[in-house]
Structure formats: C-alpha cells, structure tokens
C-alpha cells in the first residue's frame, strides 16, 4: 500500500532541502521565503511505496497568496496520509502557529524540528520530549541541509501514516471559546459537513474561503451563536489567534532553555548593519554585482591582466569544440559543398557559437546562487522596497525579478507569490526585461567584438543595471496610467545569513548547464538547421538555376538572395531608426523569440562570410613565423584548419583586428547602434516559452498580448533613445 506524506511549514524553513534529501530530487532551494510556488511530488528513495509532496510555505491555514492557497487546499481537501510539519528551531513561536492549525485538521502529523545546528550554535537547548508532550505528536530534531536525523524522521512519519495516528486534541482554547467552537461544530455536523471541527474554527475566524462554501443559513446561525456569547462587535479571529499564541508561548517556555541572551547582537545583525544600511546598502550592492560580472565576463580580471574564470573556461570549451569541428571537416572532405556547409557552417558553427558561452552562464549563475543562498538577496529585496515603493511596486516584486536573472519562465511563475493582482500583472511584464542566462551570450558576443576596446565588464554590467532601471520606470508609467490602485505592503522575514553548502551551489550550476545542454540539443539544434536552410537557399535552389550558375554545381544561393534575406528585408525598415535596419540583425531579433541564444546562432551563421579561409590566410600573412608560433600555430607554420579557432580566441575576441567582421560593422555601424541592439534584445518580448508562462499567469491571451505590447514598446523606445542620444557621443 502506498502512502502520501506532505511536507508543510513556514516559508524558508527548509522544506525543499528536506524534500531533495528524501527523494534525491534537485528542486530549487534558496535562502529566502517563497522559493517554492507550487507543490511537487517525489518518491522516497528508501521506500518506493512512500510518495512525498513538497508544499509551498505558508504562515497559517488562512491563506493570503496563491501559493499559500495551494498548500491549504491540499492539506484540507486532498488530505495526505501524514504531514511532516517542518519547524524552524530558531523561530519556534512563529512556526508553531501553523503547527497548531495543522493539528486542528486532524491529519496524522510529525514535527520535524529543523535547523538544530543553529540552535546548538546559539547555545540554546530544546527539550524534545516536553515539546512532543505539549503538541501531542512526535517531534524529531533534524538538520535538513546535511541530512542529520532525517531517516529517523521518515521512520516515524511512515509509522504515523500506516497507523493513521490522528493527533490528540489540545487544550488550546479557554472554556468559553471551546464551547462556542463545539456548538458551531455541532451545527455543521447536523448539516452533514465534513471536517466540522476545523471548519467551525475557520467559520469563527471569518475565513473567506470556508464561508463561501457554507449555506447562508449556517453562517447566520453561527453568527447568532457568537453574538450571543461574545456580543455583536466581537473579533473572534483575534481572540483565537491570541489564545493560540498564549498556548505556544507557554509550551515554548517549558521546552526551551535559552542560554543565549535575548538581545545579543548576532552575526546576521552585524552584517545587516552594512548590507541594509540606508546609505551604504545600494553602493555595496552595486560593487558586489560589478565583481560578479568581473568574474564572469572580463578579459582583464580585476585589472590583473588575466581573463576572468568565465572567459578562461569559455576558451577551453571553444578549443574543444574547435577540435571537434576539425574532425568533422576532415570527415566531410569528400562531401558535397552544401552538405559540408550544413554540418560545418550550420550545425557546428551555430551550436559552437552558443556552447562557447556556457561557461559564462555557469560562472554567473553559481555566483548569483551563492548570493541567494547566503541570504544576501533577501536583504536587497528589503533595501529595494524603499525605491520600488516610490514607483508603485512592492519590494517583494524583486524576488521574481531576481529569478529572471536565471530564466524568465520561473520568474513569471514566481509572480503568483505576490498578493496584489496589480503587482502580479506589472511584475509579469517586468520579468521579461530581466537579463536571463540566454541573453548573456548576446551581450558577451557584442562586448567582445564591437566593444573590444572598451571595458567589457562595464558594458555587460550596464545592461543589468539598465534592466532594473527600466523595470522601475515602466512600473511608474503603468502605475500612473494603467493600474491606479495603491501599493501593497511588503512584509518579509529576513533569513539568517548562512554559508551555502558546496553541494547546493554545484547543483545549481549543474542544473543550469544541463538546461543549456538540453536546449542546445533540442530547440537550438533545430533552429541552427532551420537558419542554415533559410539563409542558404531560395526558390532557384530547387529548379536547377543555382546548380547551373554555381561553378561547383551547388544548389545553394548567396545569403543576400536567400529566403531569410527576403523576409528580413521586409521587417528591417522597422528597425532603421534604432540603427540596425539591415536584414541580418533584424532576423536575429526574430529568431531570438524562439530562444534568445538564437540571436548568437544567427549572427554566427549570417556573418560567417566575414571570416572566410581567404580572409584568414591574408590576415595571418602579416605575422612572422615566430609570432605565428606564439599565437598557437605549430612550428610557426600557418595551418588553415587551426586558423579559425586561433583567430576567434586570440584576435577577434581580443579586439586585435580592426577590420574584423566587415559585414557586421556595415550593418551595425556605430557603437550606439550596437548598444541599442543589445537594449532591444534585453527588453523586447522574451522567448515563446516565457510568453506561454505569462499566459498561464495572466490567464487570458488579451492580457498577455497587452503585456507583450508594453514590452515591445519599452524596448523600441529605449533602443531608439540609445541610438539617438548615444549617437552623439559613441
């Protein structure tokens, strides 16, 4: 027989860490409240009969936000065989409030007392037996992050589920209140309502969800009963909460021996003096983010004259891919020109252009994960609340936006954690502005080729800053002209600073690389073949005209006569005011909507004629044998097979060839236009997968269409301004 065990608890109490340990899954964990926004299932790795469900965090069973409703509905309506209620041992009073409410539902429950390592570090002592007696259920101390105590916990939870051991009734309420609850319960029972005990309490608490499902007659009778005992103006919701807290306070007082003085300044308090300082917080954030990009994308890492770890790793990947391409070239020696072009220019060139940027994404994502997991990013949400509030947005919106630095899809999904509909709609639009991992290759490509003589770190960094500035400005405009409701309050529990485990950071990095690899092998692979076909063929390829005209009998055509050029030339004029009104960059924008990495794939394929064998031979002819050897040519002898890679790594991306990429420079003539191109790709409609996520969150295509229209208008306006104003200086 199989059992379902649900993990429930307050936000950021370690549910997902425990879920991952128990099931072997690699769900996203983070040191902030609200990382999990939907329920997730897994199978217990030591007993396949046990299914485990990770629920979003909730402070109580009177839910306010969408993900809290998911948790409450599951517990109340679907009823698992047992609940493991994870309680943060460092904040017992607050966490146990939910515990009492879970116990009221009558579901067999086990309390997992998490973060015991931090409790011990503080020198506090929790008497497990006393706590267990006070709440009438087993209490197991654990440390979810390193797995301490979790097997014992699962044994107890499985036993509780098997024996259907319902929690005992606790003397939480005083006699008068308990009698009122019992009377309402009797009323509900008479009407045949299931879960009458729990519903009676909720009815007295004026819980909207429960009241909506009740007959008017029942609600009136319950109201009369309450008024008779407590008077017309009675606020029983407050009374019930008060009595629950009194019970918890007494239980905690009996069970916890505090050796730490209550007002001693903790390490987190000391760090917060700097990281949440009214004046210093933002400059410190700016410096930290700059260092992040210096580690990711800089040829001159921290002015040490060496490439950053991201760039160094990218070089390694490019060399490996170059070797693979060389092998493919040799294998295709006897193939037709168009087959050779398909494999080498299309697939190897296209995929290689994206794979080369994986290390940059990996390094950036690992560093951002570190900042998230250590608790710093939650502080930034708190600090930015002051600024966001002035522009009509709550600091809570920063959390989804931050997720957008990784991928727009989870960012849009995370908007459901926002309580106000206005915030949800605005943040779903703004999430598309965030520079997701797929946009980083675009910035890195442009920074290394068209801004090679500038500070490349600064170029990339400025786009990340711009994304936040645009989010704030667009939010202001939407608040002024579209949504005129007030701003919702932002209450967020600041987590303790914790050093993330190496395992957790590496898992984040691995998942990102895996995602990129899956994408490269699926959507990007198909796109490379499609882009290659559309940019190398036209109608004459299939009626014999091209074969007759080409000396080598190839059926391919010149790029300017291709299908893609025909389509690109139609849409290109739209982008002319932005400085990139030629068909190639215009097509790049369109292919980017399938997946943003496609912009780089498109550029790699459409501008490959800038780096022909003849060009490379002529370029390297200016070097002496000694210089050629230094560049990497074996024995100082020019080698056409190695020339492409050596040129990309040592010349092109170093900015050493002033005449490099002539067609690209013709199409995007100024740095202002190049920057405008990056800005447009940063802010315009995200990929189709993200638009699908927007549709799920905004519910209708009409709303989604409006959101995309706002994104496109913002992108066009910003790029236009960059090209016009920047053109005066760049």
């Amino acid at each position, binding site marked *: 027989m199989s059992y379902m065990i649900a993990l429930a608890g307050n936000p950021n109490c370690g549910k997902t860490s425990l879920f991952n340990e128990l*099931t*072997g*899954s*690699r*769900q*996203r964990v983070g040191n902030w409240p609200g*990382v*999990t*926004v*939907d*329920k*997730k*299932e*897994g*199978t*217990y*790795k030591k007993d396949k009969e046990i299914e485990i469900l990770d629920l979003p965090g909730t402070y109580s069973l009177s839910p306010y936000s969408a993900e809290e409703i998911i948790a409450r509905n599951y517990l109340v309506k679907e009823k698992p065989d047992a609940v493991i209620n994870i309680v943060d041992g460092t904040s017992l009073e607050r966490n146990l409030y939910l515990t009492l409410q879970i116990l009221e539902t009558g579901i067999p429950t086990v309390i997992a007392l998490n973060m015991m390592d931090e409790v011990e570090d503080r020198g506090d002592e929790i008497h497990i037996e006393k706590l267990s007696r006070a709440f009438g259920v087993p209490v197991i101390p654990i440390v979810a992050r390193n797995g301490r105590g979790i097997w014992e916990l699962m044994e107890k939870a499985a036993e509780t589920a098997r024996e259907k051991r319902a929690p005992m009734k606790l003397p939480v309420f005083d006699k008068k209140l308990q009698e009122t609850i019992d009377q309402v319960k009797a009323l509900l029972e008479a009407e045949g309502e299931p879960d009458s005990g729990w519903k009676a309490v909720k009815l007295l608490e004026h819980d909207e969800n429960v009241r909506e499902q009740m007959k008017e007659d029942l609600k009136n009778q319950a109201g009369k009963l309450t008024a008779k005992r407590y008077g017309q103006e009675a606020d029983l919701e407050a009374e019930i909460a008060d009595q629950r807290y009194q019970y918890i306070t007494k239980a905690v007082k009996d069970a916890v021996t505090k050796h730490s003085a209550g007002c001693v300044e903790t390490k987190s308090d000391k760090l917060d003096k700097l990281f949440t300082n009214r004046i210093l917080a933002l400059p410190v954030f700016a410096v930290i983010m700059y260092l992040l990009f210096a580690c990711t994308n800089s040829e001159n890492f921290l002015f040490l004259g060496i490439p950053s770890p991201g760039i160094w790793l990218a070089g390694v990947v490019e060399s490996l891919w170059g070797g693979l391409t060389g092998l493919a070239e040799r294998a*295709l020696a*006897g*193939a*037709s020109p168009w*087959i050779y072009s*398909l*494999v080498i220019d299309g*697939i190897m060139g296209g995929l290689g252009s994206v794979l080369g940027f994986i290390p940059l994404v990996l390094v950036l994502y690992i560093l951002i994960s570190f900042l998230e997991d250590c608790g710093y990013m939650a502080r930034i949400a708190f600090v930015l609340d002051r600024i966001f509030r002035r522009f009509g947005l709550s600091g809570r919106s920063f959390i989804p936006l931050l*997720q957008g630095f*990784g*991928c727009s*899809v*989870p960012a*849009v*999904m*995370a908007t459901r954690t926002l309580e106000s509909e206005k915030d949800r709609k605005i943040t779903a639009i703004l999430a598309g502005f965030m520079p997701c*991992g*797929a946009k980083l290759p675009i910035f890195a490509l442009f920074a290394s080729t068209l801004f090679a003589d500038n500070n490349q770190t600064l170029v990339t960094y400025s786009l990340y800053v711009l994304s936040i500035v645009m989010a704030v400005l667009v939010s202001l405009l939407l608040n002024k002209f579209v949504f005129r409701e007030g701003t919702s309050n932002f209450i967020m529990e600041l987590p303790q600073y914790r050093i993330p485990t190496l395992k957790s950071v590496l*898992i*984040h990095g691995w*998942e*990102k690389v*895996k*995602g*990129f690899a*899956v*994408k490269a*092998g*699926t*959507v990007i*692979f*198909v796109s490379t*073949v499609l882009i290659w076909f559309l940019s190398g063929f036209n109608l004459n390829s299939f009626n014999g005209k091209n074969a007759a005209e080409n000396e080598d009998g190839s059926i391919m055509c010149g790029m300017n006569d291709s299908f893609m050029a025909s389509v690109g030339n139609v849409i290109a004029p739209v982008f002319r005011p932005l400085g990139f009104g030629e068909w190639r960059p215009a097509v790049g924008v369109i292919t980017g909507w399938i*997946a943003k990495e496609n912009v780089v794939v498109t550029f790699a394929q459409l501008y490959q004629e800038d780096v022909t064998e003849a060009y490379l031979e002529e370029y390297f002819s200016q070097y002496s044998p000694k210089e050629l050897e230094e560049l990497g040519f074996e024995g100082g002898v020019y080698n056409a097979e190695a020339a492409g890679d050596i040129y990309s790594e040592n010349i092109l991306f170093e900015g050493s060839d002033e005449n490099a990429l002539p067609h690209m420079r013709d199409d995007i003539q100024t740095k202002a236009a190049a920057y405008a191109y990056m800005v447009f790709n940063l802010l315009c409609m995200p*990929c*189709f*997968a993200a638009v*699908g*996520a927007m549709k799920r969150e905004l519910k209708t295509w009409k709303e989604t269409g409006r959101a995309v229209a706002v994104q496109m208008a913002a992108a066009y306006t910003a790029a236009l301004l960059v090209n016009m104003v920047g053109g005066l200086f760049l």
Partner: protein
Amino acid sequence: MADVIVLVIVGLCLAGSIIYTVRNKKRGGSACGCGCSGCSGSACCGKRESDS
C-alpha cells in the same frame, strides 16, 4: 554516398530532437528545456518529479 550518410544522421538527430521536445511537452515539461531543467524545476511546468 557520404552525402546520404550525413543526411541520414542529421535527419535522425533532428527527428530525435523534435520527438524529445514534443514528448517532454506532453509530460508537462517545458518545450524548450529551460524552465524545467534550466532552473532546477522551479515548478514552472508542474512536471512531476520522480526520484533519481
């Protein structure tokens, strides 16, 4: 002959990519690889996680 072999290999790879994407989408996963695996399954696609 070399052309045919290469075309068959590329065709098989393309078919494999498309089938994988469609199947993944049908299972409730993301159509593009991102979302599900790219962000450690941040619940964006409701993909049912099984143990590894």
